[in-house]
């Protein structure tokens, strides 16, 4: 065990670099110009596993700086990779600013431009104790000897920072790892995820044991389940997969105004969801920065749905300006960044009894709106999913396709939420490691519809 590769070193180096390049480019501004600057950076070791062996290892160090220039009522944003060399990066940003300025001259006025203001100063830093790069593979595979394990270890430092020409300054740096994995017995599989800021060998072993138990249950006789409607238990990870659809236009104020929201009926109070359902943005979990790319800081708690009633859509400042609404610190995409779903009262040990006869689903896969106007979603079951009879697991199922409206599944069909919740960390690694995650309980749903 050792501290991760240059942990404090990388964050401190990027902070000093960003301070210097931001100061220089801000000093280049002329009258009538306002500028917002964002930095994202990471130092990450990615190791991909297949059959409990290494398929690929990739070491990535990257710093990206974006400039958003407001000039005479026009808005232009440009970003680029930084080399890390101070002199050449300062020169590159000076050129980038000049090209923003040139381009603004040929653009139409931007009537929905959000004025640049000072939203304050914040610094949040979380350091961890990660495995040294040479220890990652032995540490992962040791506990998994004899397992057919596939997955990805991603560990290192992730950074987000922001400055603007009104003196605003935000900084967020965190040192974490995620081991997102699955284990196999032929075509039967179970999924797990071990994430944190300090690698602990016995925690990893316990995590893997839990997943092995799910895999072992699949040695029971396979059950043939025909399409139809069944009482269904979505374990926390599966419920998180389903609620992930809320990131896709459902809670966005702009999507609602532009006819793209599957939650139009909910937003216009034509309907409600189950009184059991309460969802908020909760930044106190600390997985992701509270500031957005404009440097606006969200409330620590923002209620979204309370007792089934829509309380707030996510409103960005730009949407607020265009539609005369009140902004609430949302990011430009107006999707939740720190979704927290309140627990219910169903005890984990009572889940199978409450389910009685029906389906127990650990994970869902490949969700998409199938009929957005009625908030209908289709997707698949994946990994450890079982047929349960009279409160006893009978055996694993073949994967099923389902197609169900969220107005039903989160409305009158929602029977209970569990009293235990789980954090589902964001494991996305498109472009860079993502931050954040959601916290959800498990959900018992009546008459969930399976179609194929």
């Amino acid at each position, binding site marked *: 065990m050792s501290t991760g590769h240059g942990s404090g070193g990388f964050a401190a180096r990027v902070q000093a670099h960003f301070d210097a390049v931001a100061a220089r480019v801000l000093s280049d501004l002329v009258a009538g110009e306002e500028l917002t600057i964002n930095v994202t950076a990471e130092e*990450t070791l990615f190791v991909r596993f297949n059959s409990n062996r290494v398929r690929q290892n990739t070491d990535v160090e990257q710093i990206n700086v974006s400039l958003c220039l407001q000039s005479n009522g026009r808005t232009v*944003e*440009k970003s680029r*990779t930084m080399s890390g060399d101070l002199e050449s990066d300062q020169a590159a940003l000076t050129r980038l600013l000049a090209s923003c300025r040139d381009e603004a001259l040929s653009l139409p006025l931007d009537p929905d431009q959000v004025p640049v203001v000072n939203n304050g100063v914040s610094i949040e830093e979380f350091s961890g104790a990660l495995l040294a790069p040479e220890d990652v*593979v032995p540490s992962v595979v040791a506990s998994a000897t004899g397992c057919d394990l596939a997955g990805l270890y991603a560990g290192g430092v992730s950074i987000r920072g922001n400055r603007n020409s009104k003196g605003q300054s935000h900084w967020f740096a965190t040192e974490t790892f995620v081991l997102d994995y699955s284990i196999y017995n032929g075509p039967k599989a179970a*999924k797990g995820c071990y994430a944190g800021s300090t690698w602990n060998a016995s925690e990893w072993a316990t995590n893997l044991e839990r997943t092995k138990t799910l895999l072992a249950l699949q040695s029971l006789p396979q059950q043939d389940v025909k399409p139809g409607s069944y009482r269904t238990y979505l374990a926390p990870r599966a419920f998180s997969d389903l609620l992930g659809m809320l990131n896709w236009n459902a809670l966005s104020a702009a999507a609602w105004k532009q006819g793209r929201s599957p939650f*139009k009926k909910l937003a216009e109070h034509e309907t409600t969801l189950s009184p059991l359902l309460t969802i908020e943005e909760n930044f106190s979990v600390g997985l992701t920065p509270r500031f957005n790319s404009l440097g606006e800081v969200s409330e620590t708690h923002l209620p979204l749905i309370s007792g089934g009633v829509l309380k707030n859509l996510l409103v960005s400042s730009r949407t607020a300006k265009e539609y005369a609404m009140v902004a609430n610190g949302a990011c430009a995409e107006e999707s939740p960044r720190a979704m927290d779903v309140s627990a219910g009262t169903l005890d984990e040990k009572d889940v199978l009894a409450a389910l009685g006869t029906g389906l127990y689903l650990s994970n869902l896969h490949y969700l*998409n709106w199938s009929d957005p106007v009625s908030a209908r979603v289709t997707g698949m079951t994946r990994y450890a999913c079982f047929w349960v009879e009279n409160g006893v697991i009978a055996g694993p199922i073949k994967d099923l396709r389902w197609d169900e409206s969220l107005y039903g599944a989160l409305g009158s069909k929602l029977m209970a939420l569990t009293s235990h919740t789980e954090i589902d960390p964001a494991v996305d*690694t498109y472009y860079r490691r993502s931050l954040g995650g959601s916290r959800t309980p498990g959900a018992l749903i009546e008459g969930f519809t399976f179609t194929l």
Partner: protein
Amino acid sequence: MFNNAIPHELALQHALKSALWAGLRFSSETTTQRAVRNDKPERNESSLEEGVMCEVLVDGHFGHAATADLSLAGLQRAFDRAVATTRATSGHKVHAFSATQRPPANGKYTSARQRNLDATSVAEITDCLLVASKAMNVSDKLVNRSASAMIVQTQINFFSSNGSETRQSFDLVDITLSATAAEGLESQTRSWQHTGQFGGESFDRDTFAQQGERVAQQALALLAAENCPSARMDLLLMPDQMMLQIHESIGHPLELDRILGDERNYAGWSFVKKEDFGHLKYGSALMNVSFDPTKSNEFASYDFDDGGNPATKEILIKNGVLQRGLGSLESQARSGLPGVANFRSASWNRAPIDRMGNINLEPGTSSLDELIGEVGHGVLMHTNRSWSIDDYRNKFQFGCEYAQMIENGALGQVVRNPNYRGVTVDFWGRLAGVGHTDSTFGTSYCGKGEPSQVIRVGHASPPCLFRDVEVFGGQA
């Protein structure tokens, strides 16, 4: 200008002190996104992603380190990181590779285009987008009229210690017009897309005006239309839905890295097994599918993949029988199967993996009218809007934007919320007619891999007729 600025030879020499083979892939990509919505500018953004992937072969294991520091010292540091991590992991490698998986390659590629994108001004592009947005303003019910263009210029240069030197330069355009009509709680969207390796010739005012008005009128027609009926019937898919059908139910299941299990924890496995190649009857005898990186203007055309393998057209499925998978030289070595040149990475900071490129369904002999004429009771669907398939690529459900019923060989009324579902091999067995003229589409956002990567793919197809498919509509 950057090509010569990189001290690749000295950096490779440094790497060879510790590695059996070394490669260096420089990638510089500028992506410009412009969008107009309801006649107002919504987005004018550009990004430059630039850096080098340093790749080494140590103890039979390929490993990677990415850096944006292009100085000799920066490249040497990255090679040192790659060597150290690769040496530490090679004892657990999945396969013992050799430099055979990185053949020496030399050549240059430039996208087919009529007019260099650099010669197209910001004002010209903005004007086209505004023209489209205004052309969509045919009714107060058009609540969202959006026009966007993504313009990508990419340079990829690959150098290796065994003599590779390839330089490839791409001009890419991805234009989307989208009109949403809404009334009460109902809303319908219709869109048009123009995607491929094109230059400034893509920015033609008249086309933007015509397509803008068409999608707006069709969105209004959908708003007034009945729901698509739910029943088994014949299904005629137009090329802009065939693209998705090919992508999800042919392209992904044929990727050899999926078949080898690399993707099991993320995108998924495959119903196709190693022993299926040369035997599996994937669909009807009308089905002929190719991997074709040579098609001019298609989104994923190139001369070399990111391992330096020269890219050639290969037949994947012939007269309905599976012939070949989508696997790079690494996957070919692991599986013992033939493959294609498809080892591709999303950017400088990602290692290459098996990707789709251009996967095309070869034209048949029927005109569109003849295909319609062969249908007693059925539906014709245009343009994908919803997509979902299981992790083995069997059970799919797809939805389209726009459909028209076909009765007794003639096109009839417009219906909304058209969807269909099926199981891959059974569905392709129902292929009963293939058009003689193909159209080419593509997407910038095929997602896969750990760490994850989005990549550009192209799909050309004629309209295709499938018999007796489960079709259904939206909720009443």
